[in-house]
């Protein structure tokens, strides 16, 4: 049995249309019977479920983080941990017992190493929530929500992908479609490592293009095949130049999606645009994108 091709939708800059593109692709493949499993790797602000619908099957707490815990009974108030902590996450309280600051502690354990009285433990902490279910269109979907202020978004993304891959293997799915996070940091790196291809969504504005080129650099660094789609392309006279730069950076533009009020209207109703407005210009361009990707998939190229 061949493994599912894992395609990650990323953008560098946020709000340029990742979720619109991912949701539209998921919708097309559900109607064309291309077996796909959907994963939302934007664990900071997951939103794919708002457009694809989500029927919850399983929910579990992910405790992948670690935090220092000080036992006041054993603490000798020497302050060694406070001086050693590389993140400045320990502060001595009025009673002299150090108190970890929740948003600074990374649970590295340097404090435990230097504590002369064995008063510090490194304990597992809540990273977030992992959920599994199906979309309104019957596709299996895995999503997660990072705990506010947490460090380990990448670990949570890895869990999402592992779970989604297991489901894809079980069902013999052809495609694992991953909606990625904005940026190029921890959750994005974690969604790209080991995946097959990245689809970079960009708008023809200087800031979106910069973000797209940065995330492309990361995707190529990790050996992914790269493609791109230019969203709201007709809002800028600069679009041909943008398309050229994306292609030059190794991400040929598979489709040009025009600015279309239908996208906003569909989003406002929490539905994929091709479902509500199948003959809109945006839906037609998104269908071209879905077909281009499917073609690449059949050739075994992504």
């Amino acid at each position, binding site marked *: 049995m061949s493994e599912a091709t894992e395609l990650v939708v990323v953008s560098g*800059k946020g709000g340029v249309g990742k979720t619109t593109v991912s949701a539209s692709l998921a919708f097309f493949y559900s109607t064309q019977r291309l077996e796909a499993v959907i994963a939302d790797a934007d664990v900071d602000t997951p939103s794919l479920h708002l457009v694809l619908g989500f029927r919850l099957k399983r929910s579990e707490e992910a405790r992948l983080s670690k935090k220092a815990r000080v036992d006041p009974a054993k603490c000798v108030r020497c302050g060694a941990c406070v001086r050693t902590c590389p993140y400045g996450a320990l502060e001595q309280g009025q009673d002299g017992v150090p108190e970890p600051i929740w948003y600074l502690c990374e649970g590295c354990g340097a404090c435990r190493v230097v504590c002369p009285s064995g008063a510090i433990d490194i304990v597992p902490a809540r990273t977030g929530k992992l959920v599994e279910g199906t979309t309104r269109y019957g596709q299996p979907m895995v999503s997660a929500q990072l705990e506010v202020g947490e460090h380990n978004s990448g670990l949570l993304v890895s869990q999402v992908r592992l779970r989604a891959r297991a489901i894809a293997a079980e069902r013999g799915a052809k495609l694992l479609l991953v909606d990625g996070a904005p940026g190029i940091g921890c959750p994005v790196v974690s969604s790209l490592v080991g995946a097959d291809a990245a689809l970079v969504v960009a708008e023809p504005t200087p800031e979106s293009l910069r973000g797209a080129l940065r995330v492309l650099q990361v995707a190529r660094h990790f050996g992914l095949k790269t493609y791109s789609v230019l969203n709201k392309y007709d809002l800028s006279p600069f679009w041909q130049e943008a398309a050229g730069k994306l292609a030059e950076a190794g991400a040929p533009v598979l489709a040009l999606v025009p600015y279309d009020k239908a996208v906003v209207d569909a*989003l406002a109703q929490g539905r994929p645009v091709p479902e509500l407005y199948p003959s809109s210009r945006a839906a037609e361009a998104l269908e071209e994108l879905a077909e281009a990707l499917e073609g690449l998939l059949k050739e075994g190229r992504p």
Partner: protein
Amino acid sequence: MKAPFILAVAGGKGGVGKTTVAVNLAAYMADRGLKLLLVDADVDNPNDHVNLGLEPVKLKDITVFAPVIDARKCTRCGTCARECPEHALLAAPGREPIFFEDRCSGCRVCQLVCPEDAISEGHKALGHIFRAREGEGSLELLGAELKPGEARSPLVAKALMDEVLARLGNARGGYDVVIVDCPPGVSNTVVQAMRHARLALLITEPTPLGLSTLKLALKVAEKLSLPAYLAVNRADISGHGLKAVEELAASRGLPILARVPFDEAAVRASVEGVPVVRLEPRSRAARELVRLAEVVLELGVMRGQPQRELEKP
């Protein structure tokens, strides 16, 4: 010394207009003669300079500790590899441990546990801090950029904010207002960017996605005990969506300071790399952004809210 007013422009979702609002408030306030420091803390994807048409200059590298192992002192005991919480060191039989730089978080546990004192201080670059200043104007930009391929955005945001606090602690700064353009999301990077502010201006858009992430952004502000205010961007793209945002705001006691309309002038400004309040000051978006700037100033500087002691970096 007068402590400046520190405003965090935040909001969970990417692309809702945090940078647009931050850059326009900064440009307008600076043009009104306030000494302004704009901090671009969206370290994954800093863009404020693009929107202002400025050319940033690298100020310094952001580095963390990385181990340098002295092969002569190392007894191959393997303690460092066993204790490394990130598994960045591999004990190789008969030779000194192999170091995987990509995994290292710079925590120094290896150095602390080495019984032979064989590990000394090395450095690994995570990114850099940059700076730009508008020619004659009173707007200064300080930002940081994560190195592509690196994952540790929170440390880069923290290093940037430490640099900002150092400048504020140093009388030379003399800023009236500091505006921090925060990254999207709810992670630690966002907390690092927001935690020194006195007031959070949350930005959202009137869509189900905007609404859902606004709730998350509110959680961050609450956890940091930051008073929060709201500005709705592209407020007129969905009447239904705006109503939902307004209902949430009312139920949370979150004052809505502005409803910025969708305006092609804002798109043109973004393409030109000039804030819309300067490029097309009479456009609907610019007028609402100016009004927002006035309200924010009233809230912060002019009403002289209780000023928090500056934290030592």
